[in-house]
Every structure is written in C-alpha cells, then in structure tokens.
C-alpha cells in the first residue's frame, strides 16, 4: 500500500482524515482511485484537462513529481505521497515532515 498525506484544505473531502492509503500504481491512478473514495477530490487537484493544477504540489518520498515522471510517476509498496497546495504561491515542503 502507498500512504497519501492529505493537506488541511482537502480534509473536508476525506472526512477529516490526514492520511489515507491506496493500492494505485501511478500518481494518475492514485488520484482517480482517491476520487472514487472521496468524490470531488480530483477537481481540486486537477484542472479541466486532467492535468495536476500548477499550485498543487505532489511529492513522492520528498521529491516533487515534476522532477520525476509527473502524473505517470510509478508508485511502489511502502511509498509515501504528499499532496501540498501552494499557499501564498509557495509550497510548504516542511509539512511533509510533520
């Protein structure tokens, strides 16, 4: 399973949960599967074209997926994903350590 950290503004969709688990094999399928569990989540994270929104940062094990394979980045057992919206335009990498 892959652990996904949910940021405060999206917890309204996850029933307040800050961590959820997924068996998805890529970032893309992770978003789709989370949207199945928590309807509306995809709209917040992705734009109308299905691309990850510019001011939503997704990290796989501390690395920004933009520097990996974007939404096609593969996920493996034990990985940790953080969804971190940019606030004031900048992201909050340190939130990953909380």
């Amino acid at each position, binding site marked *: 399973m892959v652990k996904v950290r949910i940021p405060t503004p999206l917890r309204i969709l996850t029933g307040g949960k800050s961590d959820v688990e997924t068996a998805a094999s890529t970032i893309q399928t992770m978003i789709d599967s989370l949207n199945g569990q928590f309807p509306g989540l995809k709209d917040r994270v992705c*734009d109308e074209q299905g691309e990850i*929104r510019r001011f939503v940062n997704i990290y796989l094990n501390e690395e920004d997926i933009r520097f990996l394979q974007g939404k096609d980045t593969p996920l493996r057992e034990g990985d940790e994903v953080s969804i971190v919206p940019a606030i*004031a335009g*900048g*992201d909050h990498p340190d939130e990953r350590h909380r």
Partner: protein
Amino acid sequence: MSHTHTDKMKGLICRECGKAYPPVSLHVCEMCFGPLEVHYNYEAIKSRLTRARIEAGPKSLWRYHDLLPIQGEPTVGLHAGLTPLIRAKNLGHELGLDHLYIKNDTVNHPTLSFKDRVVAVALTRARELGYDIVACASTGNLANSVAAHAAAAKMQCYVFIPHDLEASKVLGNLVYRPNVVEIEGNYDDVNRLCSEIAGERKWAFVNVNIRPYYAEGSKTLAYEVVEQLGWTAPDHIVIPMASGSLLTKIWKGLNEFHTLGLLDSLTTKVHGAQAEGCSPIATAHKQGRDFFKPVKPHTIAKSLAIGNPADGYYALKAAAASGGAMDTVTDEEIVEGITLLAQTEGIFAETAGGVTIGVLKKLAKQGIIKRHQTTVALITGNGLKTQEAVMHAVGKPTRIPPSLAAFQQLFHLGTEER
C-alpha cells in the same frame, strides 16, 4: 486627490482558474489554490487616464492612483516612490553601454528600499478593509517599511524575520517599536509560519492575505521608468529576483501602460538577476523549465534569499514573454557590483543591487544587451543596511596625528606654493 474613482477595481480573480472573488483580504483561490490578483476595470480606467492626468498628480507613486488597488484616497505612505532615474554615464562607460540608467530606489521614502512602494499600497488597503493590526514575513526591507509606516499610521505591528539578518535591518525595525519576532530558520520558514498565523489571526499580513494589493505597488517602478524616459519604454530592464514578484509586476506595469495607450510601443526585455547561492528561478530559466526546484539559500544577498519563490512561475513566464534572460552572480561578484556602482555613480546599494549590477555586467558582456540600447537597472535597496557584506572590501581610513608634516608625509607632498 479629488478625482478618486471607485469603479476601477472589480474584485479579485484567480490567476489560474479565473474564479472571481470580491475585493477582500484573500490571496489563494479556494478551488485550485492559485494566487489571486486584482481584477481592474480597464475600460473605465482607459476612459479617463492620460499622460497629462498622471503628470498633474502628486510627486509620489500616488500619481498612478488610477492603476493602484485602493478604493478611496491614499492614507499611508503618501511620499513613497518617484525616485530618481539617473543617467549612469560612468558605469555605462565601464560596461560598454551608451544609454544606461539607474532607477535609484536606495533613496525611497521613508525606509530606503522599493518596499516603501508596496507597503504604501498595502497599508492603505488594509485600512480600507478595516484592519488595525499589520504584519509581514520579511527578509528585512519589507519589515523596515511596514514598521515605519505602521508607526506613522498608528497601527499595531508585528514583523517576522529570519534570525540571521544584517544588524541595520534588525535595528531598522526595533527603532519604530513594532513587535519584532526572529524566527529560528530561513525566510521560507518565516513565510510558512506567517501563512499559518494569518489563518488564525485577524491581521493584515501585507505579503500573505493582503498580497494581491501589496504586490501591485511594485508596478509603479515600471510606470516611473517609462514616464522618466519621456513616455518611452527602455530596451532592457534588469531586475533582482527574490519571490519573483517584482519582475512579474514590472512586466505587468509596462503592459498596462501599453494597453492603455500611455506607451506607444513596447519591446522591452525584462531580465532577472539572482545570487548563485539562491537561484531557483534563474536555474529553471536556464534549463528551459517553467517550474523550479526550491533550494536552501546560501548567499550574502539576504534580501533575495527566498528558496521557494512565490511568484517564480510567473517570473519565468514574464521573462520568457518579453524575450528576457536570467543570470546569477557569486557572492564575490555581488561585492564587486556594489563597489563598482558606488565608485562610478556614487550610489551605495545593498547586496541585491550588487546582484543586479553583476548580472547587468554579464548580460552586456554576452552581447544580450548591446551598446546602443537603452537599459535600466533597478537598484532596490540601500547599502547602509547591508554594511557587513562590503566591510572587508572597502579598506580603512588612514589615521595620522593632527600635524601638517604627517599629512604631507602621508601623501608624499612637498611644500606647495599657493
């Protein structure tokens, strides 16, 4: 000003998804997390704004009131802006540029940096929105300006700064008696903490919840350059980058003037300058990416030491749209830039100015800026605030006893006939 118009601002709008909001204290789109910016009614503005109307305005940035996001009369920072644009012949000679100008915000009123512009706008707007407590996250200059303006405006003030700032920038807060909070961390840590505090306190954080209004103040640097060049835009503007907001807003200001017909043509290239020890935006630009990797800053240019630049994406976009370049300089080149500007033009800039001059020099050398082209370097802060950076590089005074012989000996002078 008796001719204030309240119809110029429609509200706020998300730069990413276009969602509209009323003109309140809000900076992030609740849908897509994109940054909000002011949505102007340009049709209404165009119907009344002329060069003559601006020229008849006050001798401050408020002559551009029509393009600034306040609804009533300005109430804070009435004397900010309209700093000198200096023809830099000596420096131009050194760099091989025949039409070089320095926009000298080292003498901005009252705290000697371009931040007096953004704070004048931010605090006026904060008051309009009903706030009586102001705050900011700052690398120094912004805190100084917020503290000074808050004192004059009789507003309560909290400034949050990294723990390792230059002594003058710390003192330049304390003297106004705000609450000065030093954070054990770098600016990015300060900024993150301030975002959290802003979420729970009803304070006007000028660069957090007031940011859409605050950032607009930077446009006035572009407006002034154009007006001071006789209503023409230069071929090049070299701009220091921290969050990337200044470069973004310079480009916006130029385009507004062009769209509104105040500027006949616009071919300006806006170039970004960063210190090598903190260059997330310039690095992304060089690698041809439109996203950047946050860094941990290590540079003497502390005012530019933002590792996770809020407007980095938009700065990359603006530079690309204008055909501008980006480059970096080492700490050593920053000091050289400061002393070169001082010794050629008599202007003592802070470290950010050293970054700008260093990058200007590189762009001229590389032929990106050509000899005959009109070029403006934005010098945004005063060297007296970052003395630590140059202390080792400026020598010491020579001490002698108060005797004529000692003086003559010192300079190898004989007795001169008068």
